[in-house]
């Protein structure tokens, strides 16, 4: 039995515990009993993306030291996973234990499809679903083909969702434009961040989205904040919640 750790990102731990529970349930349904260590609490991305590498490095070190002991590390966030896989190198300068960790750290949907090789679920989810392709998962982890690049079209999240019973995936006019969260960008460039989010929401509204989902709860936190402020009817669910059988409200 491989020893699997679930890395629960800081904001999910504090504000969206159900996303972590749903991830544990989905993994367990496929025979994986993941453990959640007390540490690390955060991958260090907020600091690294603000340029504060000295503040990010201790968190990267913690991450490698604690989670390096597991056979696999799974994370319900493309952005945090991309931080570990693409940006730790720069912070840790080729520590050998990091190189090993990098190759066994997975975002949830790729872990399900590429490591566990599960059959896409057929459970019911009778809603019109708008899939938000979170940028770091898309363009850094390549969990799907970005609209800019030429080549075969694919999306791991879509593959997991599309065979669910009764689901209708909506067609967006801009299939993978950024929602405008961007970490500290969301507050530093508040005006642009919110405009980007509202533009995404309008695209989902014209497409008839009932449930807006993504691999990253951080994008959804931003979009949900905008949706609730205007009392718009679209509901957000992390993809793990949909896969675990949660329904909107």
């Amino acid at each position, binding site marked *: 039995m491989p020893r699997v750790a679930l890395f629960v990102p800081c904001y999910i*731990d504090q504000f969206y515990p159900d996303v972590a529970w749903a991830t544990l349930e989905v993994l367990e349904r496929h025979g994986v009993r993941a453990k959640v260590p007390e540490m690390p609490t955060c991958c260090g991305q*907020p600091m690294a993306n603000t340029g504060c590498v000295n503040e990010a490095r201790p968190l990267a070190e913690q991450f490698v030291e604690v989670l390096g002991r597991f056979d696999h590390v799974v994370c319900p966030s493309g952005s945090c996973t991309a931080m570990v896989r693409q940006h730790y190198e720069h912070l840790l300068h080729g520590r050998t234990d990091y190189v090993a960790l990098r190759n066994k750290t997975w975002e949830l949907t790729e872990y399900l499809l590429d490591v566990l090789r599960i059959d896409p679920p057929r459970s019911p989810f009778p809603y019109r679903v708008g899939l938000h392709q979170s940028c770091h998962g898309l363009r850094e982890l390549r969990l799907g083909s970005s609209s800019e690049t030429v080549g075969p079209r694919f999306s791991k999240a879509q593959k997991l969702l599309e065979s669910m019973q009764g689901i209708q995936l909506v067609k967006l006019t801009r299939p993978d*434009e950024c929602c405008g969260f961007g970490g500290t960008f969301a507050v530093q*460039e508040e005006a642009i961040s919110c405009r980007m*989010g509202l533009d995404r929401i309008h695209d989902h509204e014209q497409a008839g989205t009932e449930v807006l989902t993504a691999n990253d709860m951080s994008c959804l936190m931003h979009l949900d904040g905008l949706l609730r*402020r205007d009392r718009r009817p679209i509901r957000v669910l992390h993809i793990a919640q949909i896969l675990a059988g949660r329904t909107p409200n």
Partner: protein
Amino acid sequence: MTESLPIIDHPAAAARFVDDGARTGWHDQALWFVRVKRDRQAHGLPEWEALREQAAAIKSHTISRLADYLEQFEREATRRGAVVHWARDAEQHNAIVLEILRRHGARKVAKSKSMLTEECHLNPFLQRHGIEVVDTDLGEWIVQLRNEPPSHIVLPAIHIKKEEVGELFHRVLGTEAGATDPKYLVEAARTRLREVFLAADAGITGVNFGVAESGGIVVCTNEGNADLGVSLGKLHIACMGIEKLIPRCGDLGVFLRLLGRSATGQPITSYSSHFHGPIRDGELHIVLLDNGRSEILASDDFRRALHCIRCGACMNTCPVYRRSGGHSYGATVPGPIGSILNPARDAEKYSTLPFACSLCASCSDVCPVGINLHEQLLIWRERIAARGILSGTKRLAMKFASHLLRRPALFAFAGALARWGLRHLPRFAFYHALNPWGRQRELPIPPRRSFRQEYRKRHERQPPRG
């Protein structure tokens, strides 16, 4: 070139732009339309990604031995009768151009689009010295008439509506008041610009590609204005950044296919004009400009930025650029590539630009010459933090967050406190002027317990099996 303060405040400029919601939507759509056209062209070429890789490889190779290729270019261009000049910075560049013009007694210059001369602020310099310069690219001419800088490197007047062009032309050219028909307005501009071409003593152009093996230069336009500007007079001055070089004529096929498609979604620019030496009885001067490019070349982190062929695709795709407008960057080259090149010139003045980015990485995926734009923007953030020019609040916040996040018990305590506050304190405790998050957005609905609190509880009750 010495640039002066004040420090560019991108968030404030962007907020002013977004404040006009309808105009922001129009601007975003106008540029997205170009991005869609680009996609259609790119997806029509199965070999697109291979072309991009080849272009990146050619550029990497060229800049790895730039000095040799520059000397070869100078030799070949000279052999064809051109005169090659070397300018260390904008000041030298402008002085060289002025000296050539004076020697010919030139008073009127027809200039085709050149971001390099914008970078050097050549127009105001020449005008100060009594030389009349007219930008003959339509968009560039419109912004010149409005006395403002271009807002985009390929589409200089993309921020201006046709109604506004109508008003401007009514005032300047005497077209009918209230005219908005593009065909009518373009015809009026065309007529006036013909007079400019006929009266010009000299033509100034930029250079899209300089070919080392032939000493030739290639200028790409859609309006043919470069050709008119340099063919009617006897003097052609071509201003060229040293990174514009490619080794062989054969390499052009790669770049011309990428440039038009990436820039405007055309298979190729309408005019790709090749100049090999001067016209009969004329003179061709090529001014090679460094202006900080050698410093970028010396940097392992930013060298690839010199691949740039100025197609503007990173601007068209950038969700921040589309919603904040080119002028919010306060620089000749705005958008993602500008946010890399400008801090290299003056890190303090342009310190907000690398942060005017959500790190969506669309620019890196769209770039036809494989510049890792979003990664370089991230490196710039690090440099800015290291130089101590990050804002004080941001630095403190990150120190504080790092301290907290490294200590699970402290993090849990702070989180519990915040969630308790969100549930029990009055709304104004969280929604106030100091919390930009809450201006247009709700904060998350706080759960009673964090995940780890609950996890611990469940596992104390029922120790995990296995």
